[in-house]
């Protein structure tokens, strides 16, 4: 049995937190078992040391207040420490490589920006931030990488995100950790961290039928999106947004949500907008024709390709966006 490796900076920080929790726990356990044993030895029947009831009653308030406030203070410190690490852990840095991971009973399908695909394996380069965009085609799954100390539930038809920067070359297991049916324990795979050179080689050697964005462009035309949405900045009629918003510069911009609030156009927004426009966009009603729902028409892999394509139409904004869920949008 080998001890669990810590393959990212975050993993090391979580280990320090766990170490802190462990030390506090051991101290409390030592106190509880120590006092228990001392009491048993000292106050067993036969070795009785009488204590007057009045002193106890008199002292009890002071004891109660003392241990309640010490407990509260320690707990509050722990809460702050852990919460800070968690919040930071869910904010991806700019320029992360976006990899789409789709769960289905009982396998993980992985799509790279270059169009490469694989099943139950995930290749990433050392030292570069990677953002996983997770979704499911059926039930709730969970993508868990113990070596990185991260996991997140994978919900059907909704994007969740995880990010990390691997700092150790090697192969690490990932698991589905949300029970998803009888094949649950077979839904595992391997994360392979390569040096940047090896990673480039791997990408080159892995067959890909065009990049994700190229495939997305084809889908954009094939599914009739281009009939209403402008996607070419300088083509004839490029300023015609009478039927639908232009896709040029859309990704990363601000738009109006269903309740009139400002929302950012990110992966999760586009994903939901393609499947059911009216529930995520407050501007849908402003157009004469309503966009049909593409639920049941487009598979998750197609959605990933379309989004990758739409991203290329806003090159200046590509970096630093795409966090699946700004806190407002994650709620339900």
């Amino acid at each position: 049995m080998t001890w669990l490796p810590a393959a990212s900076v975050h993993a090391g920080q979580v280990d320090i937190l766990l170490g802190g929790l462990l030390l506090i726990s051991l101290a409390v356990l030592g106190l509880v078992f120590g006092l228990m044993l001392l009491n048993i030895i000292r106050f067993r029947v036969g070795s009785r040391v009488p204590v007057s009831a009045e002193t106890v009653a008199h002292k009890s308030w002071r004891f109660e207040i003392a241990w309640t406030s010490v407990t509260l203070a320690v707990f509050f410190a722990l809460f702050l420490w852990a919460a800070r690490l968690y919040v930071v852990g869910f904010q991806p840095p700019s320029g992360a490589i976006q990899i789409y991971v789709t769960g289905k009973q009982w396998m993980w399908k992985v799509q790279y920006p270059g169009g490469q695909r694989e099943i139950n394996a995930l290749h990433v380069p050392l030292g570069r931030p990677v953002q996983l965009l997770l979704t499911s085609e059926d039930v709730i799954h969970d993508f868990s990488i113990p070596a990185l100390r991260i996991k997140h539930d994978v919900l059907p038809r909704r994007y969740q995100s995880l990010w990390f920067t691997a700092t150790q070359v090697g192969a690490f297991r990932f698991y589905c950790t949300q029970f998803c049916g009888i094949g649950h324990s077979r839904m595992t795979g391997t994360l392979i961290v390569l040096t940047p050179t090896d990673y480039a080689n791997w990408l080159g050697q892995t067959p890909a039928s065009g990049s994700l964005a190229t495939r997305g462009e084809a889908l954009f035309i094939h599914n009739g999106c281009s009939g209403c949405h402008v996607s070419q900045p300088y083509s004839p009629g490029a300023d015609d947004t009478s039927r639908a918003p232009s896709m040029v510069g859309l990704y990363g911009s601000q738009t109006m949500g269903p309740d009139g609030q400002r929302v950012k156009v990110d992966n999760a927004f586009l994903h939901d907008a393609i499947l059911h426009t009216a529930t995520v966009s407050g501007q849908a009603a402003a157009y004469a024709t309503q966009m049909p729902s593409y639920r049941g028409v487009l598979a998750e892999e197609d959605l990933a390709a379309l989004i990758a394509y739409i991203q290329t139409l806003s090159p200046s904004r590509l970096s630093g966006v795409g966090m699946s869920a700004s806190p407002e949008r994650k709620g339900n």
Partner: protein
Amino acid sequence: MAPTSDPQTMQRSYLWQDGTLRSWLLTTDHKRIALLYMASITAFFVLGSLGAALIRLHLISPTGAILSDETYSRMFTMHGIVMVWLFLVPSIPVTLGNFLVPLMLGAPDLAFPRLNLISWYLFVMAGALVVYGLFRGGLETGWTFYTPLSTDYTQGRVLPVVAGVFLSGFSSIATGVNFIISIHQLRAPGLTWYRLPLMLWALYATSVIFVLATPVLSITLVLLAFEHVFHVGVFDPALGGDPLLFQHLFWFYSHPAVYIMILPGMGVVSEVVSTFCHKPVFGYRFVAWSSISIAAIGFLVWGHHMFVAGTSLYAAVVFSMLSFLVSVPSAIKVFNWLGTMHGGAIRLDAPMLYALGFIGLFTVGGLTGLFLASLASDVHLTQTYFVVAHFHYIMVGGMVSAYFAGLHYWWPKITGRMYPEMWGRTAAALLFFGFNLTFFPQFLLGYEGMPRRYATYPAQFQVLNVLSSAGASILALAYILPLIYFIWSLFRGARATANPWQATGLEWRTSSPPPTENFIEPPVVTHDAYDYAALDHPAPAPQAEPPHV
């Protein structure tokens, strides 16, 4: 001092006054209903334990030793559902609680004796439906029924199982209403709120949760059944529903349900520790109100089951803080029990050994709860064996220890017989060591990343799994042993006196076993709870004092 339970007391007692089967099945005597419940939950406990035994046997091998993936999934689903709804939730309230609430109040019965009997019949029907569903077809959703797996992606028998759990909820609500009203209305003259035994404060808090939380579960299960049968989109996004909605509703019941399971155990431990230290509980009011605050704050922490589920970061931060807050009253209880021991006259009879085991194991369970309330560490540990170990430390190490403490402590009162003390201590020690060997390795497995509910696992986890399974076999022994000597004691146990432990509390003022009407003369309370001075040096003629709270 008190009369022993001679054959004549036995004849007069609730056990033998009318021995026909009909008189048992139609009884409205809370003590007999408690025994009916005890027989039923023991049967369910055995069933659930057999499931656990098969699970641990299967996990000896990384590829799975004996079961198919499907049977394994059905087995842990069965284990969870049976143990949670048919054993842990009812356990102490419906057995010891049913038996003791009127006795501790100095009343002849609960406020609604017939409702009490109905609650048992509802429970038995619920159990029958669940068992029917689980064994004629089976179910593979886990006890948590997460959607859309449970509504649209299972071939299992969702409907009978869900209907059974739904029905068991009504049995819980009936018991809760009965306890609340009894404690308000049936207290003996002089028995003020601050003179109540802490067991009653704990059961009161439990009953409040029964009444307020259970309806939410019922509604959720109805919605689940609707989606499963009629494909009404509530939870499945493919039908336009929201899968997280189910989790919010489910945990809004199921987290408070954890306190339904543990609060009565804390009540038992308060009684036992006080008696076997022959000393009032340290900080009585703090212990009493900590039960109430656990019940109250317990309603506000359900979101900590969903830190990685896809709720908002803000919600996670707030729920994390509240989860730390809810553990403060539990810590207060532990410190107060230790304070009670200080300066007492400690006897280490079996109930006390179980109670001390509770304090130790509950503390481990509580401390590891901090690892899961802390956001960043929860992300790593949740949904692994760490969580399995954590809640078993609370539910088995804590709750089952407390149930056994209570069973041994009140056994003389219930049956009029003493259990064999030496065997009782042996079983308590076996439970402690067997339990730790079973579940401690699972903390390490969880840190290493082994997910829960896996029928097969990578070979690197085998050593710890085998250790855990070895512990389970010792644990099994610790369960079988009391079953044997309790039954033996019914026939051969020494006859019990009215108050074999020199305990305070009204239940010890009547004979063992008590007469059907509980008290020949209605008792009057003149002292605080746990007033051992008054017990050791009784005043010649006790007089009623007017209530002063």
